[in-house]
């Protein structure tokens, strides 16, 4: 059976050019980049090259890039490192209800430690109201943390406007750009960003490598103690091969951004239009304005059926997608993102995310469109909610778990 991978927001395959770039660092160029001898010298250049490649993709300078082990580490570092460094100035952070757990759970831990956190709500389309952001700012606010793009819905947040607000009030601005980098243009200068986080495995580099952009002059408390690597900002011998791979992936992303966007967006729109016309009673999760969504992401709920059972059925056809259903996460609650968007609870359980990548083809999309309508119908015929005259719960009775 042919495998169709439509879960690029979860992770992506390592691109062949990236792997080629990495291999020498597992073979002849094995040195420790901190060593003075030939073996060290051979690889220290590779780190600096990767730093340039990453910096250039986001319009930063190489000295502002610190390599870390993953996106989650970058988010932890941004938030904890800032709160501690600025504890004399304040104790309040503003974030959103739809962040990735790497930010949300870090904020929750900071709350336990005595900091105050405001979680900005989103509307039914998952969009933010920037007036709410301004209202939430107090004299004690030291950090605004808003993701560039949401991993579940693909919604792109108005980062430039948020950057302007942060600048106006002189508040540090962190953005989790893990899903945005490589998919849409990202420019830290234009958006006035102080801290920005990238993860390798979402852009064709391997798992276990990431980067954080730290604007020059941004005071941070060190978080990983040890050696003097990364200008004392992050101890630990660097993952040279992974970093070289991340650099290459960023270089490819810079070169291909325009063509990637055009291609993937056309395929995503084909899927979105196909599902809308062939499957009745669906709900789009995320903004209906496609320009304000990542070009590769589509999140839909299929009324009356549950997400995991749909995923298992699709899996039998070789199709890999993902779901916001509780049943796929091991918890009893559906995704917090669906909850924050006030998606009715059975619809939240059925939310299904298709995320495309550079390797996705039109044939694959058409195959999905071939099998999806009958699969959905088969599960609907099995559902006690289908054709039974039950109406969806309203907001008053809906028990969707919301963080706010």
């Amino acid at each position, binding site marked *: 059976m042919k495998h169709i991978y439509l879960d690029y927001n979860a992770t992506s395959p390592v691109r062949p050019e990236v792997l080629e770039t990495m291999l020498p660092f597992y073979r002849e160029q094995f040195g420790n980049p901190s060593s003075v001898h030939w073996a060290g010298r051979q690889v220290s250049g590779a780190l600096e090259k990767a730093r340039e490649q990453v910096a250039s993709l986001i319009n930063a300078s190489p000295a502002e890039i610190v390599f870390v082990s993953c996106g989650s580490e970058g988010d932890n570092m941004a938030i904890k490192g800032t709160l501690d460094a600025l504890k004399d100035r304040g104790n309040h952070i503003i974030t959103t209800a739809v962040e990735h757990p790497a930010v949300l759970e870090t904020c929750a831990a900071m709350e336990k430690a005595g900091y105050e956190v405001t979680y900005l709500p989103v509307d039914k389309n998952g969009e933010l109201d920037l007036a709410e952001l301004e209202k939430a700012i107090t004299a004690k606010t030291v950090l605004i943390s808003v993701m560039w793009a949401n991993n579940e819905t693909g919604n792109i947040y108005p980062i430039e406007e948020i950057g302007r607000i942060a600048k106006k009030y002189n508040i540090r601005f962190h953005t989790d750009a893990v899903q945005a980098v490589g998919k849409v243009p990202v420019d830290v200068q234009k958006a006035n960003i102080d801290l920005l986080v990238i993860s390798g495995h979402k852009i064709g580099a391997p798992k276990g490598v990431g980067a954080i952009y730290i604007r020059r002059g941004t005071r941070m408390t060190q978080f990983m103690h040890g050696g003097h690597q990364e200008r004392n900002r992050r101890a630990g011998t660097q993952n040279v091969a992974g970093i070289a791979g991340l650099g290459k992936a960023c270089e490819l992303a810079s070169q291909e951004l325009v063509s990637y966007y055009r291609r993937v967006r056309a395929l995503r729109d084909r899927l979105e239009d196909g599902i809308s016309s062939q499957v009745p009673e669906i709900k789009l999760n995320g903004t209906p304005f496609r320009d304000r969504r990542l070009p590769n992401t589509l999140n839909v709920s299929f009324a009356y059926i549950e997400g995991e*059972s749909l995923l*298992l059925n699709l899996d039998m056809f070789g199709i890999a997608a993902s779901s916001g259903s509780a049943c*796929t996460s091991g918890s009893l609650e559906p995704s917090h993102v669906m909850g924050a968007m006030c998606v009715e609870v059975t619809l939240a359980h059925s939310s299904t995310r298709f995320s495309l990548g550079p390797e996705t083809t039109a044939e694959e999309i058409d195959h999905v469109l071939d099998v999806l309508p009958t699969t959905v119908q088969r599960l609907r*015929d*099995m559902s006690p*909610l289908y054709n039974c005259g039950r109406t969806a719960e309203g907001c008053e009775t809906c028990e*969707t778990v919301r963080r706010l």
Partner: protein
Amino acid sequence: MYTDKVMDHFTNPRNVGEIEDANGVGEVGNASCGDIMKIFLKVENNIIKDVKFKTFGCGAAIATSSMVTEMAIGKTIEEALELSNQAVAEALDGLPAQKMHCSNLAADALHEAIKNYITKNN
């Protein structure tokens, strides 16, 4: 993650649907936890002649529903009331730990349907 038996019942569920002249109907679960299961019974002379189900839920929920209907057919209502959630899970060669709450649902739905039959017929 799922056993072959679970996948078999999930992909080819037995006894899906409704019984038009059911004399016992039971429903358990709630939408917020992501599973709702409805069981229809046809009881004659104290024996379960036919069972059908409809389920909103994950793979485990559908498989346990299917399994419980197979196990219940032909049993007396007393025997069927003895059917435990554990027995359903075991008949499927086990369920992943985080899914055990779904297997509880299947036998519960059957018991609800039997209770509904008993109240209606007394």
